[in-house]
Each structure stands twice: as structure tokens, then as C-alpha cells.
């Protein structure tokens, strides 16, 4: 029997209500498609927390070594090297069902597990296949959040259990709930889900001189949002928001990849996307090319395809020409947001750019042409969202009484009515929290119950909108069609989470539910995962050490192996034998589970190859000298 949601408190480590814990920090987290960050407000100023290695960014990448997870920079290093066991950009899958995936499946850099049959059909939760195991996007996201939690704990030197997490403004209810669940799995009490562009506006408006009507153009790795806000004396009022949850910087990499795949097919006659390693390498090279083009007018794109090398020079203008159609897709949402806010472009006092891809000149030029003004590039495009989340955390902690965020629902909410149509109870861009009530009736004589089907979206037909929940109000009095009066109440809290209640006004029978996503995890699944994660906490720490050791040792092994032929030229056979034995020893240890032994054999291998390294360096130097001498002779 699955445990009800209330009982979860028995399993999740809850923060007891004592003064000590109220002073424990609430962190702000930007859980991004490409990168994630954690920040906190200190002395009134938001600051992004650094990891041990000094980096502020945790790449949203998870790699599995013997089905144990590694997160962040260490995982990113394995993106191409161990593509089969590494996942990234999973935010694109959060809260999505199989139907949502059809459109984007071909562009996704991972293998989706086939849907599992359920009683209601086969549209269950989407799972990613990684090295023979399957994981939900929620679990992967939880691993990233856990890494951020550890980063914050190390930086602040105290335990961190409460957080504000940002999501794209245009995320629907299922995607928001999925993010919440991921936080819970990571051992975080998620105090608030905040919209990314709204969070960015908080950091932007920290300087109180910045007032008036602004647009936040937020192009992230995988999502696009635009929000129109009014900033007035510490109040941040969202007037309207729009977006596209399947459009981002990844799509700009995509245009480069598409060209590469076509040309590789022509040149070598192979489909480069079949092999996961090649796919990952293409994506990585495309991202590097895109970034290089933000500073130079040319960049070389190079990828190894089996024995051959595909190489191509990209010019800035070539890239920009292909990027424009992608950016053009942001025009509609921007114009609709302005229309919903009841504003003209000329009334805006500033346009703020957020998200890594907005560094590209082509994006800045596009925004300028769209809004007829130079966009504001003064905020740090990668960090401003995390900073804003930290400010909202500070507000919720009661430390900041000057600021207040007033947000809206991004998508309309309603019910299925007769004829398969959606009847809207709460239109998009309604301020939250809010409550809406409407009375419905029956269409058939002597109906004993009615199905309440909760929907989210802007379309007329039910099937074009997202189904959030279905439940039945039973126990109606037997009456002719049209006689019963059923009152349905929608309640949205400050988090944007919906609660629905239906009441038969004749009998007083009532049925209330908290809307749970159709493609989320069931409560019992969450509970099982939580149990497992608490048992594994110690093992996790040990495992981090093991992964770090492997990441150190593997490059050493690769270099030595590649130089073994040279060793046979330079060194006496007995010394070569010693090196070969050291290589074998390290290989054996790498397949085992001991971090100390891996580090020890790696150090030993380093030691026995010192002379080889010296000889190789000497040879390189000699070659250089003879090269320059011969060039002198040719050209006196």
C-alpha cells in the first residue's frame, strides 16, 4: 500500500522548529540545463558559492561508474571519454511524458528507455538508459542538487537543508512538481520554486535606482523565457510571462551539429549520430565552436570519426545565418508577453539579457532589432539567476523586508467540459496566489458521479492541452441532466502549485486533491528512493574519493600506453618490462574499488616512467633544433 504524501514527513529529515534552525541558511539554486549554481545572501549581497576547486559552476552532468554517480566537472570530463555512461541536459526531460518527447527525441543526446506498460496505457514516466540502467530525469536532477547541497555545505561549513530552486517561467505544473521532487530526493526542503527571469530581475533590481518597466530575455541552455516586470520601490511585479521550454543554446549547437552530420555523411558515408561517443563529441565540439565564435570571427570544428578526422572552419557570418532562424522563434513569445502585459515596446525602460547564450553577438543584435534598443548586458548572464534565487531565499528567511516578488501563472488552468473542450478557470498571467470557483452541471440523467479532469494550456481542445489530473466526484443525488450544481474550486499558492476541490452543492459531498503530475514519481517511489539515499550517504562520500582517483589516474595511464612503442626504442628491455608491469597493475586497480590503491599504483607508474619522460622531452627538443637548422640552410 503506497504511503500518502503526508507521511513523507516521517522519512524526510525535517527541520525541527527551533530558533537554531531558523538561522540555518536558505540557499538559492539555479538548476540549469547545462550548468547549475548555488548562492547565498551575505551582508545583504548575493554571492555564488565556490566548490573546493574554486569553480562557481557545477556542470549539470552526471556520469555513472559501475552504476555509481559522479556529478559536475568530473562527470563533464567523461562526457565524451565515457559517453555511454554519462548524461547531460536532462532538464529537457523533467516532467515530460512520452508524447512530449516525440518532437524532440531525435535531438536528444541520450537513449530513452521504452515506456513501461501500466494499467492506464503506456504513458509512464520517461527514463534515460545509461550503461544498461535506467534513470528518471528527477533522479538525475536530484544527484545534481545533492552535489550543490554538498558544495554549499562545504563553503558555509554547516548543514544546508532548505533551498529556493529556480525553474523556467514557462515550466508547466508537471515540470515544477518534478523539480520539487528532485529537491526532496536530494534532502532539501524546497521552500519556493521561483521563475528564472523573475529571479534574475531581483538581482538586477538590487540596485534600487533601477525602476520602471523591464523585459527579461532569458535564453538558457535548453529553455527560453521572456518576462515583463514592473519594478517599483522594492516591489517586483510580474505583468506577463511567455516562453518555450524546448528552445535554447543547445539548439544553436544543434545547427552546427546538423551541418557536421550532413558533411560527414557525404565525406565518409557514415551516420555520425548512431554512435553515442561520436554524438557526444559532435555536441562538445559544436559548443566549443559556438563559444569560440563569440570572440573570434573564425573557429575550427574538428571531430574524430573512427580512423578519420572531420575538420571544418566555421566563419562567424556562416554561423549567424543559421542561428537567426532559431532566434526568430523567440519573437512570438516576446510579442505575446508584451500584449498580455498591455504594453508597447516603447514603454519599456530596459531589456535585460540572462543566460549564457545571450553573450553571443548575434543574440544581442537580434534582441536589439526586436525591442528597438540596446539590451542591458550589465548582469552576469550565468550567475544572475542563482543570485536572484538567493535574494528570494533571504526574503523568505525574513531578512529582507524591503523586497517583494509578485508573480503570475504562466499557463491557463481549467477543466474538461462537454464535447472535449477546455473551460478555463484561471487564465495565464493571473497573479498568484489566487482562487477561482465555477459551477458545473451534468449532461446525462441520473449521473451518480462526475469526472473532474484538470488541464493546463492555451488550446481549445482537451487533447491539445496538458492533462494534470483526473478524479471523480461520487455520490451525486439522482437527478435529471442539468440539475446538479457542482462547484469546482482551483487554489494556487505562492509557489504556483495547484489544488483542486469539487463540491456537490446539493448534498455537500466534497472531494479535494493536490494535483500530482501524470509523469512524476509516485509517493512510494519517492519514499523508496529517499530510504535508499539515506542508507547510501556514507558510501557516496567514499565513492567521490574513488571517482576523483580514477579521474586522476586514467589520463596518466593513457599517456604512458601511447608512449610504450617509444619506450621500446629508448629503454633497455628490463626497464620496459617494469613499465609494462606498472601499467597492468594500474589497469587492475582501476577495475577495482579502492581509491588508495589506484592513487598508489598511479604514483608508482609515474615514478617508473620518469626516465622515459626525460628522454622523450630531450628528443622533442633535438628535433626542434634540427628543424630550425635545416630551415636556416634553405633560407640563408
Amino acid at each position, binding site marked *: 500500500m503506497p504511503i500518502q504524501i503526508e507521511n513523507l514527513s516521517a522519512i524526510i529529515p525535517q527541520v525541527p522548529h527551533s530558533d537554531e534552525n*531558523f538561522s540555518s541558511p536558505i540557499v538559492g539554486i539555479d538548476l540549469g540545463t547545462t550548468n547549475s549554481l548555488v548562492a547565498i545572501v551575505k551582508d545583504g549581497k548575493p554571492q555564488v558559492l565556490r566548490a573546493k576547486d574554486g569553480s562557481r559552476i557545477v556542470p549539470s552532468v552526471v556520469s555513472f561508474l559501475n552504476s555509481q554517480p559522479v556529478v559536475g566537472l568530473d562527470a563533464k570530463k567523461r562526457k565524451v571519454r565515457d559517453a555511454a555512461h554519462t548524461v547531460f541536459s536532462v532538464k529537457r526531460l523533467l516532467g515530460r511524458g512520452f508524447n512530449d518527447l516525440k518532437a524532440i527525441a531525435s535531438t536528444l543526446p541520450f537513449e530513452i528507455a521504452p515506456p513501461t506498460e501500466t494499467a492506464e496505457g503506456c504513458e509512464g514516466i520517461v527514463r534515460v538508459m545509461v550503461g544498461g540502467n535506467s534513470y528518471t530525469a528527477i533522479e538525475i536532477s536530484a544527484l545534481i542538487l545533492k552535489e550543490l547541497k554538498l558544495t554549499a555545505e562545504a563553503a558555509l561549513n554547516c548543514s544546508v537543508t532548505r533551498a529556493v530552486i529556480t525553474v523556467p517561467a514557462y515550466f508547466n505544473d508537471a515540470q515544477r512538481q518534478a523539480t520539487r521532487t528532485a529537491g526532496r530526493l536530494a534532502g532539501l526542503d524546497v*521552500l519556493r520554486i521561483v521563475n528564472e527571469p523573475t529571479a534574475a530581475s531581483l538581482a538586477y533590481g538590487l540596485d534600487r535606482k533601477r525602476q520602471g518597466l523591464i523585459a527579461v530575455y532569458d535564453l538558457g541552455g535548453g529553455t527560453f523565457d521572456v518576462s515583463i516586470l514592473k519594478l*517599483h*520601490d522594492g*516591489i517586483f511585479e510580474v505583468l506577463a510571462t511567455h516562453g518555450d521550454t524546448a528552445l535554447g543554446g543547445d539548439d544553436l549547437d544543434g545547427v552546427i551539429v546538423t551541418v557536421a552530420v550532413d558533411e560527414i555523411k557525404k565525406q565518409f558515408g557514415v551516420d555520425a549520430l548512431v554512435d553515442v561517443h561520436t554524438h557526444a563529441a559532435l555536441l562538445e565540439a559544436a559548443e566549443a565552436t559556438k563559444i569560440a565564435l563569440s570572440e573570434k570571427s573564425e573557429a575550427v570544428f574538428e571531430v574524430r570519426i573512427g580512423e578519420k578526422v572531420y575538420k571544418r572552419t566555421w566563419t562567424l557570418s556562416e554561423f549567424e545565418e543559421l542561428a537567426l532562424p532559431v532566434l526568430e522563434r523567440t519573437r512570438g513569445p516576446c510579442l505575446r508577453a508584451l500584449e498580455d502585459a498591455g504594453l508597447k515596446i516603447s514603454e519599456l525602460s530596459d531589456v535585460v539579457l540572462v543566460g549564457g547564450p545571450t553573450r553571443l553577438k548575434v543574440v544581442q543584435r537580434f534582441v536589439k532589432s526586436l525591442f528597438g534598443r540596446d539590451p542591458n548586458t550589465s548582469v552576469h548572464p550565468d550567475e544572475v539567476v542563482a543570485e536572484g534565487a538567493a535574494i528570494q531565499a533571504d*526574503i*523568505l*528567511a*525574513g531578512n529582507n*523586508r524591503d523586497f*517583494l*516578488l*509578485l508573480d503570475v501563472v504562466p499557463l491557463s488552468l481549467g477543466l474538461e467540459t462537454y464535447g472535449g473542450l477546455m473551460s478555463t478557470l484561471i487564465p495565464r498571467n*493571473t*497573479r*498568484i*496566489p*489566487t*482562487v477561482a470557483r465555477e459551477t458545473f452541471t451534468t449532461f446525462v440523467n441520473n449521473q451518480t458521479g462526475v469526472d473532474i479532469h484538470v488541464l493546463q494550456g492555451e488550446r481549445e481542445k482537451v487533447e491539445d492541452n496538458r492533462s494534470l489530473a483526473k478524479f471523480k466526484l461520487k455520490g451525486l443525488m439522482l437527478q435529471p441532466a442539468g440539475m446538479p450544481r457542482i462547484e469546482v474550486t482551483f*487554489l494556487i*499558492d*505562492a509557489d504556483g502549485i495547484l489544488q483542486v476541490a469539487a463540491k456537490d452543492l446539493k448534498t455537500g459531498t466534497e472531494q479535494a486533491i493536490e494535483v500530482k503530475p501524470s509523469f512524476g514519481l509516485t509517493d512510494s517511489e519517492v519514499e523508496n528512493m529517499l530510504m535508499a539515499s539515506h542508507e547510501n550517504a556514507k558510501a557516496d562520500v567514499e565513492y567521490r574519493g574513488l571517482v576523483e582517483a580514477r579521474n586522476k589516474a586514467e589520463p596518466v595511464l593513457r599517456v604512458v600506453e601511447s608512449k610504450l612503442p617509444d619506450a621500446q626504442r629508448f629503454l633497455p628491455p628490463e626497464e620496459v618490462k617494469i613499465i609494462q608491469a606498472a601499467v597492468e597493475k594500474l589497469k587492475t586497480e582501476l577495475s577495482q574499488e579502492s581509491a588508495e590503491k589506484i592513487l598508489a599504483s598511479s604514483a608508482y607508474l609515474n615514478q617508473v616512467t620518469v626516465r622515459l619522460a626525460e628522454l622523450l622531452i630531450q628528443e622533442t627538443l633535438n628535433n626542434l633544433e634540427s628543424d630550425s637548422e635545416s630551415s636556416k640552410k634553405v633560407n640563408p
Partner: protein
Amino acid sequence: MKCQFCQKPLTDFLSQNICASCGAPQAVSVSSTEDYFSVFGMPRRFGLDRAEVEKRFYQLSRALHPDRFTVASLDTKARSLARMSLINQAYGTLKSRDNTRAYLIKLESSLDLKSKPNAAIPMELTEAWFELQELISEDPAGAKAKLDEFQTELSVFNEALEKKMSSLEMTYDLNPSQSLLEKLAQEIQTQSYIKSMERDLERLKKNAYSN
């Protein structure tokens, strides 16, 4: 009016939402006599100082938003949530002239704005519209200019309607009467008919001439 908790008198609109003495958000009861005007402490009339409405909305939000009650008791949290929902709904109505118009008519009369009596439909426009629709199916190219012309005609009609409603509202604010509300209700129905015609026209133009 007295605070539901400390019984001290509630003297202004802000304290009627959240007691100035004990700081308790006041519960929203179903049978309450509160309406959107009273929540904002604004006079019950069509003409409102909308800058003042916005100012009061910010004042109320600062005091009552659930973000201000994260460490309060569950009961207080629930009252802040309910009150802020009410404030948001009230603001959504009072900041817009159209919404205030419909709301006040509903509050002060038993008129049903959703029923559509034929009297509200301007016959000349309706006939012209039917003829245009036929013309489009027969001769799309020739209908283009006529469509644009009709669109202008509709917006002129709308402007006149808006003026008429404004003057009805001003008269009502000075000297309220049911018959004025009835006239206003009829104009609202005409307006919603014209607006749906405008939407259909826009859609038709898009379908016929987008390529």
C-alpha cells in the same frame, strides 16, 4: 469593525485586511460582506483613481503576501494565503475599467451579462458582416479592401460605444439608478458581440491572405 483576534477597532482599509494592533491577517469568510471595493477601501463606483488602486495594491501586498509569513503558524499562513488571493482577485478587477464595469453591475443588480438578447445586436453591422463572408468565398482578392474598410467601421463603432458607456458610468456615479445599469449591461453585450466579430474578422483575414 473589530479585529477578529484582539478585538481592537480596525480603522482603515489596510487594518481591515491585517490588524494594525496585533498583526493578524483577518480571515476571509464565505458569508463575508466584503467586496473588492471594500478590500481596497475604495468607493463603490465606476470611476476610480487607478493610480491609487495600484498604490494600495502594493501596500496590501507588502503586508499580506505569504512570503511575509513563512515562519508563522499554519493558521496565520492560511489566512495570509486566502487574503492575498482575495487582494489579487480584487486588483485584477479594479485596475481594469472593463472588469470594474462588469463587477459593479453584478454587485448592484441581478442582471446577467452572459445572456445575449437580440436587442443588443446592431443589425446593420451584422448584415454587412454576412455579406462580406459570402464575398470572401466568391472573390477573395476583391474582398480584401472591403474587409479593411469594415474593420475600420467596427473600430469606429467601438469607440462611440466606449464613449457612450463612459458617460453612462459618470451619470451613475453621480446619481445611481437601476435603469442606468440596465442600459450599461446592454452596451456591454453589444460590445462583446462587436469584439467577437473583430476576432472572427482577424482570423478570416489571416486564413485568407496569410500566404
